[in-house]
């Protein structure tokens, strides 16, 4: 742990620039499955990373503690744990604290101390009616107040497992073979301007929202300053963080459907919006007029996930790859088709989404039948980009 970088970007470059491999898989029946496929697929895209960051998000991995927020915390310094645990203890109801199980992997050197805390806000008077807001606020506070501690996962019945190394090594390190989940997203990273900080690996997360990202967001400065107006502090100095916060703002706080949020992040061109005088066109126009500062510009593909749902999205002119595929109840999203074919040779459908067209898959309600071809991924209102 000594010598572990404590910041994502010690050079103060403003943001971290990286290229990456991303992968995601969901079973829309909600049935948990092992991480074998996600791990093998992301390992298949080894060449797209450089060993300076990798990680996984697993949904449904803590079924026994599903009502509690699972805080994953990394400590870059021994002393700080005591202070953070004091803080957690006085601001949450703590149900369980334990080290995150890891095993030795010879290529993973100097890991930080990794702990998880299952907490609730039940007794806290300030949590009140909006426990999620309260949790976000507390995480922001821990991440800004304690310099060498970092909360990197904070949702219920989900977890983020990430660090410096190749993703398949991190899967081994975090004993991910012992977890099962109904959504797995994965990331292999190729940062160009940072020695690699554990907190700076993907997925980025707030509450149960996670984001894995390939690309560089040229609008980062605009997005970041806009989000700061709403109380989000970008502590990570990386562009991916703004995606997570933008989604949190739009979906959780402004209560917009995820389709609408996607059309804010990858807004249709004005030339398309102007041709559409239907209520949908007016909605798209209004969204773009009110949220111009949340348009994500520059090349990117992201896989965004939260409880029960996984979304793939590229920038408007598709400067980063994304392939989608379906096989029965499984929907795959990947930087490269080969990774999907490696883990599931008998795919039903494989397709390349259009630029800015969100691919969405959610866990079906009880009794709901499997969607027809591509229906699980139908773009917002039909997609006429």
């Amino acid at each position, binding site marked *: 742990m000594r010598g572990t970088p404590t910041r994502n970007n010690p050079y*103060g470059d*403003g*943001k971290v*620039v*990286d*290229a990456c491999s991303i992968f995601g898989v969901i079973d829309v029946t909600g049935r948990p499955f092992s991480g074998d496929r996600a791990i093998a697929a992301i390992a298949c895209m080894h060449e797209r990373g450089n060993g300076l960051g990798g990680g996984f998000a697993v949904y449904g991995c803590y079924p026994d503690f599903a009502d509690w927020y699972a805080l994953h915390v990394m400590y870059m310094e021994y002393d700080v744990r005591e202070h953070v645990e004091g803080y957690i203890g006085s601001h949450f109801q703590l149900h369980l604290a334990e080290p995150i199980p890891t095993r030795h992997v010879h290529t993973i050197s100097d890991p930080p101390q990794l702990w998880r805390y299952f907490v609730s806000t039940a007794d806290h008077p300030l949590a009140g009616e909006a426990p999620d807001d309260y949790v976000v606020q507390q995480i922001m506070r821990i991440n800004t107040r304690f310099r060498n501690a970092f909360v990197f996962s904070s949702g219920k019945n989900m977890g983020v497992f990430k660090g410096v190394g190749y993703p398949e090594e991190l899967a081994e390190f975090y004993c991910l073979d012992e977890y099962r989940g109904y959504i797995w997203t994965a990331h292999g990273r190729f940062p*160009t301007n940072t020695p690699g900080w554990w907190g700076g690996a993907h997925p980025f997360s707030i509450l149960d929202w996670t984001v894995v990202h390939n*690309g*560089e967001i*040229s*609008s*980062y*400065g*605009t997005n970041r*300053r*806009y989000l*700061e*107006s*709403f*109380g989000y502090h970008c502590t990570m100095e990386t562009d991916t963080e703004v995606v997570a916060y933008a989604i949190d703002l739009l979906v959780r*706080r*402004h*209560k*917009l*459907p995820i389709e*609408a949020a996607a059309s804010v992040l990858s*807004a249709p*061109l*004005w*030339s398309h919006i102007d041709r559409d005088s239907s*209520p949908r066109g*007016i*909605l798209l126009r*209004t*969204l773009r*007029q*009110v*949220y*111009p*500062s949340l*348009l*994500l*510009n*520059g*090349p990117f593909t992201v896989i965004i996930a939260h409880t029960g749902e996984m979304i793939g999205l590229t920038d*408007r*002119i598709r*400067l980063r790859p994304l392939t989608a595929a379906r096989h029965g109840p499984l929907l795959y999203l990947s930087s490269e088709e080969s990774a999907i074919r490696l883990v599931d040779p008998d795919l039903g459908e494989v397709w390349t989404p259009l630029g800015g067209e969100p691919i969405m898959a959610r866990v079906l309600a009880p009794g709901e039948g499997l969607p027809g071809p591509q229906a699980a991924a139908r773009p917002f209102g039909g997609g006429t980009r």
Partner: protein
Amino acid sequence: MKSYLASRFVVLRDQERCIQCRVCVRQCGYDVHAYDSEAGDVFSCDERCVGCHRCVVFCPTQALSVRENPLSYRANANWRPEVMEDVLRQAETGGVLLTGMGNDKPYPIYWDHLVLNASQVTNPSIDPLREPMELTTFLGAKPEAVTLDPETGALATELPPQVPVAVPILFSAMSFGSISLAAQESLARAAAEAGTLFNTGEGGLHRSLHAFGEHAIVQVASGRFGVDPEYLEEGRMVEIKIGQGAKPGIGGHLPGEKVSAEVAATRMIPVGTDALSPAPHHDIYSIEDLRQLIYALKEATQYSKPVGVKIAAVHNVAAIASGIVRAGADYVAIDGLRGATGAAPKVMRDHVGIPIELALAAVDTRLRQEGIRHRVSLIAAGGIRNSADVLKAIALGADAVYIATAALVALGCRVCQMCYAGKCSWGIATQNPYLTRRINPSIGARRLANLLRGWSLEIQEMLGGMGINALESLRGNRLHLRAVGLSESEMRVLGVRPAGE
């Protein structure tokens, strides 16, 4: 009284080339050139020359040139020629020294110390010839969030009035009176062609320009000249003018000589009377009064158009702008130290106010700190010279910019700073029909629309180079700016890092 001032310029006439055609005699608004019929010769009175180049450009044989009088004073860093000449001029007139156009003193021009970013390797640059590149900007107040009906999913948010501009460049306030109708019509036509707006200034909207009302920002200033319900109805946006960068803290003065019948009718005042705008609005003595005026204008226009407020950039501009936003303005225009004017006391123009770059950065930062930046549009004015300045202003936080001097230069203006004299040889800052006829509004509009087109193409190139395909992704994106040769405190106010960091 004999003037002790030496002439500023020397007119050079190549007698070999001069054909005594007398074009220069007719072109000069300042009577520099005269024809001596007895001698059969054209001669020049150098002391009247303002250096506007009208004669030089129109001389059919290129016989003329104008150069600064090379007259040398004994070198003195303190008592420079301009300082002494101002003293002499006041000793001879006993008055306030007047001038026109913007501050010409060598204050730092921060635009020239800011450089833009471009993509390399990790982020592909975008070719605007092959890919869409969006510059459309919507001016007007925005709500905090879009709300959908939880039952039906239908849009429940109704936006306040939004005004789209195809390029983020608007023509700043120049009244009919300060400039000729032909010049204003050129601006109006160009605004219509380019999909942007022009600003009437405090001079009303001449009947002949009502056709361009859709592209007009109608100004309501302290003199209320030309303001009636029809005027408000005609405009696309309404602007309350509190101050102007060239002369913060004072009003306007259009001398009676320029108040022709048409100007008088448009301003709704008697012919030949001085049009004096008071320094403050006599109904605004604090922010709550401004709120009343904003809402009075919104009521008068049935909340159908944005009502903005224009202020001069002064020391505590950030706090003032914040108050204006909270008072209900739909946009705030900030006019910096180098903003121009048709007439202002020279001492005010040269010494009052702060540079727009610092003011804009300070206002944008403050509004964000207070969480209200996204509610309003911000327009930066005063010293925007080219497309790079426009883009830098947007990266500092502006939604759009106002240009005025650049627009007049496109019409021929040489920034001779004599607008207040009403003799403009280019037909811009004059009401003399012999001079104003020189501007053909079709050609004037062509020149202005060309300028906007050229800038907009350059903006697209620069945006594409940064890997951005919509202007909104550069707004307030100061990471795309770096400072060269600025102090720590200047960089702190601008919110930019030094180049190389």
